């Protein structure tokens, strides 16, 4: 379907004087409404608090500016694709012009939020492979906020499949894309173990508390709350705590299942003939992410503790141009939603064409265990001491430091589990490292993607003969650590991962050639 689009487009596309395209005008029906809703708090706030004051209409001015900016953005934004670059212009009063060289485009991410889906529109986000933090969003990416879904698909094929374009346009029908993974209804059982609902509950409680506090009303005055509190006052404390815990657990589980359905509905990971991975997912907001295969720098299998106990795992791509957990890129590289861990390995094997993550890992020295244990336990003990100090000063009741003390054995368990997880391997093309307990991740990073190597050694690590190896890459998290590896082991690993780079700086083993 997309290949026919390419044929239909005017021949001028992709040449020096390519035609300019506008954003879809139907956005004019949606954008002002959204801008109005967004500026409603300012508008109402100014009217309410500034009643009778000369500045009470200032909200109206702000709203007008917001609506005007939105409308002019839709009307004046133009883009075109020339032979060498994608150009974009916008603005009426303040004009902007941005050009991105086409060979630097790494990702075209298509998102349809509810506002887009009304008219089958989408936002196309064109990203370069640059990977530096501290830059605001949109610095070196280009967002076309309202194009038809067909146009978004066309842009995607046009911009990403340049190398294969010649081939695909000759063949009348492109060979079908190959399905790597699709979501399975049975995977819903992993949803409660992601605890994603906890964030929703936290946010809701926070918001309610904030508003109650702002508007100066005491929730205790409500008869319903009063009845509940009164009921609990009669029952023993441990029953109330148990009931509250069970209630919270059920609520969080339900919300997590809801979140799973919303995010991963219709999840499909496919490989297109041109060598691009294509991820589509979402129920209300649909996302479509493309990752050029030569931008793939590896993959990571994530097993947070609850999910790991249930035998589940997630799979994430380490790809250039996709910053992990940063704004719009959040969750962009997800290759598999929480699913059985065996399935995650299958997906890695399918995507990377080998499964380096499954390689048996080299365990780290025993001294690393003492470090993990002491760090976990000392952390909790310090917390307990601080809480005790506050209790002693009378700022806090006694129970917080007592609870902190009770946590000590758990901290020790987590420390032990963290040590058990530590491991590394070198598979020829990939450096594999695993760490973490509450948030365990096993990452396989392509060695030719490393932009150097960092060796860290704290005073205590030095005494234990350990170092932390950091593998910087321009993809995913930006760096992957090999935590507390034996000094000689770590350097040998780095030397194998980056052949020749360390050699002139190493002493000792001189006969490596």
């Amino acid at each position, binding site marked *: 379907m997309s290949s026919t689009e390419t044929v239909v487009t005017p021949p001028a596309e992709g040449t020096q004087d390519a035609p300019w395209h506008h954003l879809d005008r139907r956005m004019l029906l949606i954008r002002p409404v959204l801008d109005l809703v967004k500026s409603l708090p300012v508008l109402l706030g100014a009217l309410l608090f500034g009643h009778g004051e000369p500045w009470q209409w200032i909200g109206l001015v702000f709203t007008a500016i917001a609506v005007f900016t939105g409308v002019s953005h839709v009307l004046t934004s133009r883009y075109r694709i020339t032979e060498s670059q994608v150009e974009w212009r916008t603005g009426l009063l303040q004009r902007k012009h941005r050009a991105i060289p086409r060979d630097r485009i790494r990702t075209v991410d298509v998102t349809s939020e509810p506002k887009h889906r009304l008219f089958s529109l989408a936002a196309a986000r064109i990203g370069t*492979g*640059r*990977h*530096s*933090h501290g830059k605001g969003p949109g610095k070196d990416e280009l967002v076309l906020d309202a194009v038809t879904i067909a146009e978004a698909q066309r842009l995607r094929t046009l911009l990403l499949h340049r190398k294969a374009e010649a081939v695909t346009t000759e063949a009348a029908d492109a060979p079908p894309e190959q399905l790597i993974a699709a979501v399975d209804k049975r995977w819903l059982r992993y949803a409660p173990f992601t605890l994603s609902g906890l964030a929703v509950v936290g946010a809701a409680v926070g918001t309610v508390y904030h508003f109650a506090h702002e508007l100066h009303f005491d929730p205790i005055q409500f008869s319903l709350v009063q009845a509940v509190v009164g009921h609990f006052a009669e029952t023993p404390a441990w029953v109330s705590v148990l009931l509250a815990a069970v209630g919270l657990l059920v609520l969080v589980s339900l919300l997590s299942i809801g979140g799973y359905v919303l995010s991963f509905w219709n999840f499909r990971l496919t490989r297109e003939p041109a060598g691009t991975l294509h991820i589509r997912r979402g129920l209300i907001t649909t996302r479509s992410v493309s990752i050029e295969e030569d931008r793939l720098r590896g993959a990571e299998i994530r097993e947070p503790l609850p999910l790991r106990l249930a035998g589940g795992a997630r799979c994430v791509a380490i790809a*250039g141009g996709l910053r992990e957990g940063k704004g719009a890129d959040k969750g962009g590289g997800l290759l598999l939603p929480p699913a059985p861990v065996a399935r995650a390995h299958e997906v890695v094997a399918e995507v990377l064409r080998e499964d380096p993550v499954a390689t048996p890992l080299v365990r780290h020295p025993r001294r690393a265990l003492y470090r993990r244990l002491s760090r976990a336990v000392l952390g909790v003990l310090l917390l307990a001491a601080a809480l005790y100090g506050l209790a002693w000063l009378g700022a806090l009741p006694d129970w917080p430091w007592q609870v902190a003390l009770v946590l000590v054995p758990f901290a020790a368990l987590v420390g032990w589990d963290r040590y058990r997880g530590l491991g590394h391997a070198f598979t020829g093309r990939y450096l594999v490292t695993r760490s973490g307990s509450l948030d365990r991740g096993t990452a396989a990073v392509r060695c030719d993607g490393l*932009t*150097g*190597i*960092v*060796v*860290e*050694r*704290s*005073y205590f690590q*030095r*005494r234990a*003969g350990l170092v932390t190896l*950091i593998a*910087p*890459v*321009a993809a995913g998290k*930006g*760096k992957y650590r090999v935590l507390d590896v034996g*000094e*000689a082991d770590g*350097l*040998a690993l780095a*030397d194998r991962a*980056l052949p*020749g*780079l*360390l050699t*002139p*700086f*190493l*002493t*000792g*083993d001189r006969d490596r050639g």
Partner: protein
Amino acid sequence: MSEHTTNTAPELRPPAHRVSRRAIGYWTVTASIVWIILIGVQTLIVVTSDDAPSFLTVTLVLSCVLGPLHLIVMPQWRYRVHRWEVTGEAVYTQSGWLKQEWRIAPVSRIQTVDIERDPFEQLFGLAKITVTTASAAGPLRIAGLAHDRALALADELTKTTQAVRGDAT
């Protein structure tokens, strides 16, 4: 510290060059400013306030002991650790004091070479070179270089980087 190096165990040798000796003065001055502010504020509160909290006297005494100790030990220690080396293929730095780190970046991955000088660095005739790679985790910093040395080094790096062109990501 356990000496477990044998002939076969690989070990990173320190980079060839030290930074400028004037860096010791620079580190001493910049650290002392922090300590002076810290001690000054605490003294002000203890002296002027009628009922200063008792723990403040303890922290003040601690600061007065730790501050000078830090100022004597840290710059010397740092000076011994901070080293750098540039070859045709790679940039190699060693830095830190209590926590030390070694960074190696191949010249083919270098994206930018920056020289920075804050007012105190200018006072001591020093400069700081930052070599960035495509990864956010990979910048190499050589702090405390003599200014002319830094200029020459940046020049050399830019030249070698241009000779080895690549995608750098």
